[in-house]
């Protein structure tokens, strides 16, 4: 539907002079100026703990990230200091960008060790599209999308992360584990 501006409004002589609106605009901007000046300059000088301006100064401080946020995928390390991963290859298959690369290791007799584990686990963040399909496909709660989004680098080759670089203790991922159970549990994977 077309939007019509009513241009037949009769303005008074005082309104037509444009001055009252200028004064109003100046009052608003200078109010912001003074409120912010006394709200955040003392903070900047370290005299005040709380800042009265809500802009986040990004590299120094980070905004809290909602738990549903999909940052870089990481591998969960369980309490025995081993990855939860059993190298089944489902994430590799689910990955639409083919950025996951797994070389499995098999148990050859020692029964006190885990049955199967990833010898090498590589994710190329230069290729990853952060879709979260790997997390959804994982049957062992081994791969999770973390809240870390600071992965830009100057060298593309260094963006291939290996097993040690990907490992994150599972205590740090507790909230995300809860979240995935709630979200993907609906379909009974």
């Amino acid at each position, binding site marked *: 539907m077309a939007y019509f501006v009513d241009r037949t409004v009769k303005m008074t002589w005082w309104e037509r002079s444009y001055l009252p609106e200028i004064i109003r*605009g100046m009052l*608003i901007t200078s109010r912001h100026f003074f409120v912010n000046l006394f709200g955040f300059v003392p903070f900047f000088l370290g005299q005040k703990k709380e800042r009265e*301006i809500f802009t986040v100064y990004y590299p120094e401080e980070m905004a809290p990230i909602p738990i549903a946020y999909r940052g870089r995928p990481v591998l969960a390390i369980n309490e025995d200091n081993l990855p939860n991963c059993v190298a089944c290859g489902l994430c590799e298959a689910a990955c639409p960008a083919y950025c996951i690369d797994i070389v499995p290791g098999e148990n050859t007799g020692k029964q006190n060790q885990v049955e199967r584990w990833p010898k090498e686990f590589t994710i190329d963040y230069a290729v990853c599209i952060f879709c979260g399909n790997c997390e959804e496909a994982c049957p062992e709660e081994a791969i999770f999308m973390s809240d870390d989004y600071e992965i830009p680098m100057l060298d593309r080759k260094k963006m291939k992360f290996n097993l040690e670089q990907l490992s994150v203790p599972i205590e740090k991922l507790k909230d995300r584990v809860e979240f995935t159970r709630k979200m993907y549990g609906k379909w009974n994977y």
Partner: protein
Amino acid sequence: MLLELIITLVKVFFIIGVTVVFFAPVLTWVERKQSAIMQDRVGANRADILGFTALGLFHAIADAIKMFTKEDFIPQGANRFLHTLSPIIAVIPAILTFAVVPFGGQYELWGTKVNLVISDLDVGLLFVFAIASIATYGYVISGWASNNNWSLLGSMRTASQMISYEVTMGLTIIGVLMVFGSLKLTEIGAAQEDFLSWGFFMQPLGFFMFLTASIAENKRIPFDAPEAESELVAGYFTEYSGLKFGMFFMSEFIEMVTIGAIVTVLFFGAWHIPFLPSATLLSWLDFLGTNWANLVLMLIHIGVFFAKVIFFIWFQMTIRWTLPRFRYDQIMKLGWKILLPLSLANILITGIVILAIN
């Protein structure tokens, strides 16, 4: 003779130091920071020396280094001589205006009379206007010499805008002259000792018209049609880079200081403190001895003057970051159809009132 020369040189260095070395770079920082604070942002704070950012003050130094080291590019087909000449013509009048602007009164220090103005011309105010209109040539030549259509359009707009508003400015000043009866800026300043005799109370309409016209002369938002980014790339300095661009940039900021200074002298009591005549202040400082008291008074007056100038710079910045740009026809309409008749009416009313009082 030698003493006079030294005093004059000190004053020249003081003015050059304050306007070019201090105000022009610091104002780039002020503009960034003030606009940021007004818009609930943080503003420039990345440039640092050894991890010490000083609230982003070093951005001014970084700017200067950038401008000094950038390639000085002259486009093909441009007039090389005029292309180089025009930024110089634009920046020099802005600095030269300060030759007649008094930044303090007259003081007697150790038997020497110190008049805080570089050149106390009898036609000081006319000199300001004569010099300021030379800058128009710089802007027009820069547009023509660049061999660029945007530049030419920008400089045509500059010429018409500056000529239109110069008329208003000149006519507004006549009201001030009628009230104070002098063209000497030092005398106009000295006549405003009493708070109620400030030009602002004598010529309230004249003050607003003068401020509007001088912001239009400076080509800042809301009157920035000559360099409108969304229409003309960058207007008359589209083809300039490096230090030449820096000179155009600097002339804008120095002109802001000039406008602040002239408005202060003409309308806001120059170096006088409201409700505090110099004689009273001097009697308070009497315990220092005459010479030292005079020196302290001089410093206080200089401080007061520049505080007023800084207030007007703040005011111009607030206007710049509050109002949107006028359309070109609106600028012309405001100049010729509203401000010009109003300034003529102002002269008439001033004349009638002066006649009635006498």
